[in-house]
């Protein structure tokens, strides 16, 4: 292998792939990045065995071939080379990779490329293209509700599935829950996605994906195999294993006949919750909402730290209601709501409550109250 490549392009690609490489791994080859020089340029691959990121970089290939080198080390070296410089990567022998730029010359230990894992294999059962904004929307709107409790591994990710709507069109949904709250985002399904099996994408992959979407422009190409999902994002390909579990039938916890409707200014509400919860205890963080016609009172009563109360105007026509919630949950959901007004739909103080954006019915949030 012998290639020359532009430093900034290589740095960007290494930045993407090296973030999946674990700092501490007992398997030497997993610390390395695989470099394959072919007609297309230089292909970089890194993995932690649960997911894999591959990126192609434009390069002048003088001699094809493959090699591996320590990912973090290589990244650090390339980062310190001068902006815009050209560098050359070669393999003088099987055990070493050389990085040469100007008068700098580095020799890095190499491991055989044949030992490098491969997560990409497999024939996809479903393939579709999804706009970057749509995929980012799915993830951003639901990721806060993902459970991080290992005991509930089947909730440690975002559940994606498709369904037929009443008008015959097909929708795609992303759902996450930790048992206390649930977030559901829905968009028209991309062409080709209909009928795909429901899958749970692990949290770690979801977060990595979101980082990659940040700078992306073109539609994301998605391919689903029996046990993996692959996202191709502007030349970066992320492949991940899925969570091997069944996502619960979440529809059952989304109430359909909550008839007590509250409308409140989203920002004022969030600020008030934040203020009154200052005095709440660390763990419980319970805020009581006392709601009557056109008047919402938020209160916290903490025997150790005192009490707080704040009144907000609102729109409410049902019977007076008192209901408690975890302040953090309220804030996290309020942060997802972009329009000026948040809609609450209540049943009673012990039943699931719906929170929604007044202008956007693509997302729905369900929150269990706290008994206060």
């Amino acid at each position: 292998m012998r290639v020359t490549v532009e430093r900034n392009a290589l740095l960007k690609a290494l930045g993407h792939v090296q973030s999946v490489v674990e700092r501490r791994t007992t398997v030497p080859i997993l610390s390395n990045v695989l470099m394959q020089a072919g007609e297309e340029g230089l292909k970089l691959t890194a993995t932690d065995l649960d997911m894999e990121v591959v990126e192609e970089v434009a390069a002048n290939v003088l001699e094809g071939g493959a090699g591996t080198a320590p990912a973090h080390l290589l990244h650090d070296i390339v980062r310190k080379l001068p902006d815009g410089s050209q560098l050359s990567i070669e393999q003088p022998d099987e055990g070493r990779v050389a990085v040469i730029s100007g008068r700098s010359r580095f020799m890095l230990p190499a491991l055989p490329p044949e030992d490098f894992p491969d997560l990409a294999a497999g024939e996809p059962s479903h393939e579709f293209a999804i706009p970057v904004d749509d995929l980012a929307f799915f993830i951003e709107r639901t990721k806060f509700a993902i459970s991080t409790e290992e005991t509930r591994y089947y909730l440690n990710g975002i559940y994606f599935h498709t369904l037929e709507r009443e008008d015959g069109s097909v929708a795609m949904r992303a759902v996450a829950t930790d048992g206390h709250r649930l977030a559901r985002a829905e968009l028209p399904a991309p062409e080709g996605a209909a009928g795909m099996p429901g899958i749970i994408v692990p949290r770690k992959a979801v977060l990595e994906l979101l980082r990659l979407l940040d700078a992306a422009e073109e539609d994301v190409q998605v391919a689903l195999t029996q046990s993996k999902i692959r996202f191709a994002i502007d030349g970066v390909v992320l492949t991940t294993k899925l969570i091997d579990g069944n996502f619960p039938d979440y529809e059952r916890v989304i109430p359909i006949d909550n008839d007590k409707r509250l409308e409140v200014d989203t920002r004022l509400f969030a600020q008030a919750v934040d203020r009154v919860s200052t005095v709440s205890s660390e763990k419980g963080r319970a805020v009581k909402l006392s709601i009557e016609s056109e008047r919402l009172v938020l209160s916290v009563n903490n025997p150790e730290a005192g009490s707080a109360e704040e009144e907000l105007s609102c729109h409410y026509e049902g019977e007076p209601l008192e209901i408690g919630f975890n302040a953090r949950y309220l804030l996290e959901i309020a942060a997802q709501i972009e329009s000026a007004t948040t809609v609450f739909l209540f049943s009673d103080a012990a039943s699931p409550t719906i929170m929604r954006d007044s202008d956007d019915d693509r997302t729905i949030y369900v929150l269990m109250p706290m008994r206060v």
Partner: protein
Amino acid sequence: MARAAQEKTAVPDIPHPAEMTVLVGHLKAEARMLSALRSGRLHHAWLLSGPEGIGKATLAWRFARYLLAHGDAPPPEDGDLQLDPAHPVFRRVAARAHPDLVSVERIIDEKTGRPKRAIGVDEARRILHFLTLTPAEGGWRVVIVDPVDDLNLAAANALLKTLEEPPQRTLFLLISHAPGRLLPTIRSRCLHLPLRPLTPAQVRETLALLDVTERTDAEVLEEAIAHCQGAPGLALKLVTSSAGRLFSRLRATLDAGGVPDRAETTAIVQELAAARDPHALALFVDLLRSWLQERAREAALHGNAQTAQRLARAEAEIAHLLTRAESLNLDTGLVLTAIFQDLTRALQASPA
């Protein structure tokens, strides 16, 4: 890795079972595995038991590689579990970089050269995490625990639940040097496959296939084969480590009924200390202990209870010394000197 010091032989490092291409013997066990594959009903957990160094792990890794490469499609009638070392699955498994295999192994403490006392719950958790994700190839997942004897209670507990309700298409290969001491609940979930020590001829064949024979002094080789108790793993250690050579010198004295003199023991202490190889010290002491055990057993068989007791006690004291030395991180020379004192005392008291 530290290499044993300056022999005229240059035997290669002993390959890890994940990289081992050679397996001699255990044909019946391999046939059981093949017929399980053919039957289409592969039991989810196998317990491979037998003395250390006879090839249990080698067989387990061989089975794992085959399953990962070929799935559970019935193997051909005259087939075996061999996989070409150039096969991508072989390469990745050998590098411990196959996404559908996880292995939990005895961790060698580099300082002492001895295995850490237990495999803890953090290691077992790696297995649980592995099993929460789908197999990357969409086929089988393989879990290897080597040896399962070393799991501490918490780790064994964590593993047990998954053995009781195993996820689909998952194969557990558990290796045990002392299956009698396992949690009965673990044993009862497994298909038990006891493996036996090899014959001297099979050990010889193994060493030849590993290119050891031609690089080793014939006498050293025969010694190793004679004293490895049917375990090629031990035979390899005997020929590669300076400890093996040093011990055979000592054994010549001991077997002749003699007591090693100070000059002899000092030479051994010096050589072992100079080798700066913690594995060598560990091996030397292991060899000495099994010699004592063997003599104690013989004495007992001949009705010589007193001698048997004294030898057994010396063996126990040496074991104790070694444990203490490890925890205090004592100097090799000091430990050995103390060990020789114990040995000399035990031998001098016994009638020659």
